[in-house]
């Protein structure tokens, strides 16, 4: 009995791991191609068909680079935080259900996910602090600033969803959307959620943590190549997670015409990912002092309005 459950859990972990890795790889390739098309250039073309192997080549190139430790860097803190970031991000993906294929279906799973998600900026801040680089330090401060600006609106949207569904289980949330997506039930909430998740995923216009024209690479400025690669990979996995959670919570998950299937979830996830890339291709970075205004005035107000509308409508 226990053995069977254990095997099921391991099976699920392996499937999700492969999915996440494949998607992260695919996301990296797609972003290069898609943004390239947007900018009237080709993107990678040399390695493999359509440059599909380019990211693999970059991966190996980064692995062969020398790892340099800055003199004043806090090695232990750095290593702990970088692996915790990677571990937590993978763990987040493990908690996502795919149709009838999931590991935990608890009624508080969504809260767990987002508590872990709001723990990540703190780890990133620690990581930035550990390298004792001033750019990384600024990036760490910005990470905390993003956390305090976007976390409350995000959770207010989650509360609205929970209020509507009477559960924080993702499976019940998706099942509640069998007739109408939450995108149409709470469009304001969707907007707030999207903005907050963009900030979580370090995507423009809220990519303040690794603002490359200001902070070089933000919290990764002094990071050596192997760990940089790890962080980059985690970044893609986080993007996968963001796209997946948006399609689960707002776009009806696996519900679609011609039968419900996990394929719908994949299609929706890819569309959301493309949308995120599209934003990256056209948007300008928001200034740091406007973020507070945007988070605390605009998004907070919108999320409260959203909550109230859901309360009225229900």
């Amino acid at each position, binding site marked *: 009995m226990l053995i069977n459950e254990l095997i099921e859990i391991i099976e699920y972990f392996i499937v999700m791991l492969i999915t996440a890795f494949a998607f992260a790889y695919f996301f990296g390739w797609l972003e290069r191609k898609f*943004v390239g098309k*947007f*900018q*009237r*250039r080709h993107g990678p073309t040399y390695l493999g068909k359509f440059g599909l192997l380019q990211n693999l080549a970059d991966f190996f190139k980064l692995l062969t680079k020398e790892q340099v430790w800055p003199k004043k860097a806090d090695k232990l803190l750095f290593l702990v935080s970088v692996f915790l970031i990677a571990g937590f991000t993978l763990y987040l993906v493990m908690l996502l259900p795919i149709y009838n294929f999931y590991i935990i279906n608890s009624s508080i799973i969504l809260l767990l996910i987002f508590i872990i998600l709001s723990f990540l900026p703190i780890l990133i801040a620690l990581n930035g602090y550990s390298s004792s680089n*001033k*750019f990384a330090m*600024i990036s760490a401060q910005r990470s905390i600033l993003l956390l305090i600006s976007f976390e409350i609106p995000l959770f207010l949207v989650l509360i609205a969803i929970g209020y509507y569904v009477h559960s924080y289980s993702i499976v019940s949330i998706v099942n509640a959307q069998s007739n109408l997506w939450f995108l149409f039930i709470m469009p304001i909430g969707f907007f707030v959620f999207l903005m907050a998740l963009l900030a979580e995923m370090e995507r*423009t*216009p809220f*990519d303040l943590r690794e*603002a*490359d*024209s*200001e902070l*070089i690479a933000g919290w990764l400025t002094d990071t050596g190549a192997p760990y940089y690669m790890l962080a980059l990979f985690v970044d893609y996995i986080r993007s996968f997670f963001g796209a997946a959670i948006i399609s689960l919570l707002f776009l009806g998950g696996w519900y679609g015409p011609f039968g419900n299937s996990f394929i719908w979830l994949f299609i929706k996830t890819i569309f959301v990912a493309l949308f995120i890339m599209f934003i*990256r*291709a*056209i*948007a*300008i*970075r*928001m*200034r*740091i*002092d*406007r973020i507070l205004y945007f988070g605390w005035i605009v998004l907070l107000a919108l999320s409260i309005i959203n909550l109230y509308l859901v309360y009225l409508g229900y």
Partner: protein
Amino acid sequence: MSLVKINIGPVHPSTHGLLRLVVTLDGDTIVNVEPHVGFLHRGVEKLAENRMYMQIPPFIEKCDYVAKMAMDEAYVATVEAAMGIEPNERAQYERVILLELQRIASHLLWLGAMLNDLGHFFSVFMWTFADRDKVLKLLEEATGQRMFYVNMRLGGLRQEFPKDFEYHALDVLTYLEKRINEYESFIENSSLFKERMYKVGVLSRDDAINLGVSGPVLRASGVNFDVRKDKPYYVYKKLNFKPIVLYNGDNFSRYKVRILEIKESIRLIREAFKQMPDGNATGMPIKLINPAPKNKVVRVSREGPRGEIMFYLVADEQRPYRLAMRTPAFINLAALNHIARGNKFANLFPIIGSLDLVMADVDK
């Protein structure tokens, strides 16, 4: 809170070359910006003293590798002034056309780089780069070189324009006009852009005059000074144009002045093509130039894309006794501390971008 010193550059994604800034921050507010220049110093002025007059343009051009033609022309005009040569009218028109094309190319590159400094992920940069390439193709057609032309000769150009250059140029101009309008609506409709450009990095009129800035930076602060209009050279007198002047002195004005200047340049080129007389614009071959009068001192100033380019030449017979350059980006960089002080750290890079610095131009 205690002050923090941050060292930005010389290797940094948005310092436009090799600029090192030591920035003092109070929290997120800039207290002081100290530019350290000289990483790209090649001693062009000194090199010029050991070379014949027409061996110098290749060095001069590398000073401003974004607007090569403007530097080249300013230098050759200085030598012409020292020798008392005046190019014929057709040569003057052709030079004006080339200069304005170069101005368009330079401003297009600037536009993309500016958006990058604001945190745009290379989209506008790639678009303007492609459009700039069309202009460079034209210049290649006219001069034979894509980047470093060395095209100016005493009394004219190295070669006459090719036969159907005018048609190609007008074609490209029509295309560019459309594109510029597209960029304008794409960029200015973005509220994030407005937020980061309006009333950011204000340089007042008095400060602009006192700091000696020139070019679009000066005109964005409400000073109506354009060398093409105020000390007209070549056929700019006959061409009907007015300098673009805006009055806010902020990042947005500096952006807008350049956009409007591109449009004005397009108009100017069209007019110049219409007025251009027949004739031969070919200048003297390099080997045949006469010796210049000894100890003659000339000073020539030109309106480059970045501002006023000024050459000061003490002539010797075969080579300059002394050549001094006033490069616009160097003087404009001096205004950086003044503009950036009191701004947020994130605003520093758009301000640097809006000054349109080319570090080779700063370091000479």
